[in-house]
């Protein structure tokens, strides 16, 4: 089976143009000291969005599409499939899950535009309130595999968030759907070969994941709701109807760090794949990239904070980020949660203060 690994041509072109533009900006900046002004802050925000948020959006969309394509290829001929095909599917799920964790900190705009049927919830039910719906998806998958319902797109699109998304696909790919829940790739393959409806479930759920991811990418890149503009345009032009762009970005990341710690994501997520630390590592890398930008080539948020005279803020943020990344690498949940709490604090204080941004009295001070 072919390993799918593509970037869409249009996005490649767009990204290359963007990099060229940013590189030209960096040449100017190397000759001139970075000034603390609104233009450079806006440029730092634009770089953060284009280099990290949009890239995360597009990589998740691509990875989801690849998972669907790989599933389609697998299901076209399960009779001749091998255990390696199961491993390939598992690896593609791992890649998609990591790409989701890299995007999930930017929990606004297309991710939660529909408050009642938010895209993020369909993709990642754990993110809603930290509840692990593994028992629900196991029951749902088994029921669909053994039942007689017509397993078409409409069927899966209508399912509530507790029964779908990455968790449901994790169960389909990393264990058998029978009561043994065997993790043996031979047993998983045999079940696909014995029960054709399991492939229908895999295809239906992976297609819906792809649709959700494409919807997010479309909102960011093309048109957001009925605005006629992309969310990127609305965001960078500060045309959001509900608040300022940089406040939205910083508070979203802060709340995500709080979620990762408060809901013990390290010990509850991706338990079948055993990849929660890798996923949190992907989230931390994404946030680090958001802050640091591309080394030496762009105006980044941390550069701006440092030039504004807040080198101690930058040192604190970098130190806590390194601590969190090390804890994730060590798979040490206690140390990770402690470091996440420190980073959470950085996003409540040092990051907004360093950028001279108000998160809001009411947001900050409870009563």
């Amino acid at each position: 089976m072919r390993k799918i690994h593509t970037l869409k041509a249009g996005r490649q072109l767009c990204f290359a143009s963007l990099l060229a533009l940013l590189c030209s900006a960096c040449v100017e900046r190397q000759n001139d000291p970075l000034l603390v002004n609104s233009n450079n802050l806006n440029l730092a925000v634009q770089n953060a969005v284009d280099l990290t948020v949009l890239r995360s959006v597009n990589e998740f969309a691509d990875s989801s599409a690849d998972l669907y394509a790989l599933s389609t290829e697998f299901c076209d001929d399960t009779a001749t499939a091998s255990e390696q095909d199961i491993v390939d599917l598992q690896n593609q799920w791992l890649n998609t899950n990591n790409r989701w964790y890299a995007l999930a900190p930017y929990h606004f705009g297309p991710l939660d535009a529909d408050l009642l049927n938010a895209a993020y919830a369909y993709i990642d039910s754990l993110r809603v309130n930290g509840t692990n719906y593994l028992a629900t998806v196991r029951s749902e998958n088994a029921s669909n595999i053994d039942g007689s319902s017509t397993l078409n797109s409409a069927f899966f699109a209508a399912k509530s968030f507790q029964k779908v998304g990455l968790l449901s696909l994790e169960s389909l790919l990393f264990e058998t759907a029978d009561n043994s829940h065997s993790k043996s790739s031979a047993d998983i393959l045999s079940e696909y070969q014995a029960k054709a409806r399991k492939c229908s479930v895999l295809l239906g759920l992976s297609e819906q994941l792809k649709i959700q991811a494409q919807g997010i990418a479309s909102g960011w890149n093309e048109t957001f709701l009925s605005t006629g503009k992309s969310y990127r345009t609305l965001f960078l032009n500060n045309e959001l109807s509900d608040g300022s762009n940089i406040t939205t970005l910083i508070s979203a990341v802060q709340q995500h760090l709080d979620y990762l710690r408060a809901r013990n994501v390290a010990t509850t997520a991706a338990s079948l794949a055993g990849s929660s630390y890798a996923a949190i590592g992907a989230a931390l890398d994404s946030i680090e990239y958001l802050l640091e930008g591309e080394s030496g080539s762009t105006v980044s948020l941390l550069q701006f904070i440092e030039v504004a005279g807040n080198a101690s803020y930058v040192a604190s943020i970098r130190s806590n980020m390194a601590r969190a990344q090390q804890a994730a690498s060590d798979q040490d949940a206690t140390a990770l949660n402690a470091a996440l709490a420190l980073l959470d604090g950085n996003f409540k204080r040092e990051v907004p203060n360093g950028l001279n941004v108000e998160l809001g009295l009411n947001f900050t001070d409870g009563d």
Partner: protein
Amino acid sequence: MKTLNRRELLAGLFALGCSPALLSAEISAPLKKEHEIWLSAQGKTAGDYGLARLSQYAPPRVLRSGFRGHGLSKNPRNQKVVLFPRYPGTEALEFDLNNPAQQQFASLNDHVMSGHGVFSADGQYLYCVEVSKTDGSGLISVRDTQQYKVQRQFPSGGIGPHEIKWLPDGKTLVLANGGLITDGKGNAINLDSMDSNLTYLDAASGKIISQWRINEPKASLRHIDVSPQGKVAIAIQLQREACEHQNLVPLCAVHDGQNPIELLQAPETLLSSLQDYVGSVCISPKSNIAGFTSPRGNLACFWHLDKKQILAAHRMQDVCGITLGDNGAHFMLSNSAGQLQQLDAFNLREIPGSRINNKNLAFDNHMLTVQI
């Protein structure tokens, strides 16, 4: 207690960098007709703290307070308003909306103010919610409205009392005891034993009529509003770090005074968006809809009080203040970026062109609408 005379007041205003001439002119300007103004505690720094006064007809004005304010109550018999301090403040300030005179008064010994209080219907008394510095227990100090001297006092019925309101009978007080004891930095120190309740009190005797709790020990009932029919809408804050579960807890509730408190339901994704924190609540008597605000979720959510149905959710960054505007036809929302947004109180759609931005202001948790 200290009453400021005009000279002291003007000296204080001058010291705070405020123009007494401007304030005086604004406050005492002859009114063409009765109109609506909106009041809110405001300010980000000690030098800015005050009472923001806003209307459709005049530029915003800030009456300096010298402390960070929280809740407000208007005397129904005159144009005087009391700005309560944010917990754990000890000084409250009376403003006369038609006159620059101010009168400051202090909390009881060894007590701080919760940030809320209410005047009696006859305007003769102020019921001020106070909290013991030693054990967090709640007390209602009943004060005259001449010099705000304490006439009597009675227990609130719990720990960490917060907002208080009247039932429509004018005799019964309803109060949310938040259940929390906090240290000087606002950190809860009794999460293990916290006990929040909704208490109904006989205002004349101070006797507890009834007390009600919800089935979540780590939920702090804090803000309330009362409908003309006597239904109490309750805004709740969950102490998530103290929970031993990951369950979603509804944070908006309604009580009829007789049956168990009813938690208002909504789809999980919406309830989750409230981020375990609802900061203020307001009922529209005209539409019988209760609006709840979550600054952490950047959301205002609305339920029908009788049908208990979620009707709408409105996004606004850092939204917390909520009151009624346009004689009750609108919900008015505020945030600390100095923004006001207005929603139709019936269909809950934003009123086009109604946004007001005051970039130099930062509205704190609560708003009050008054007619002058």
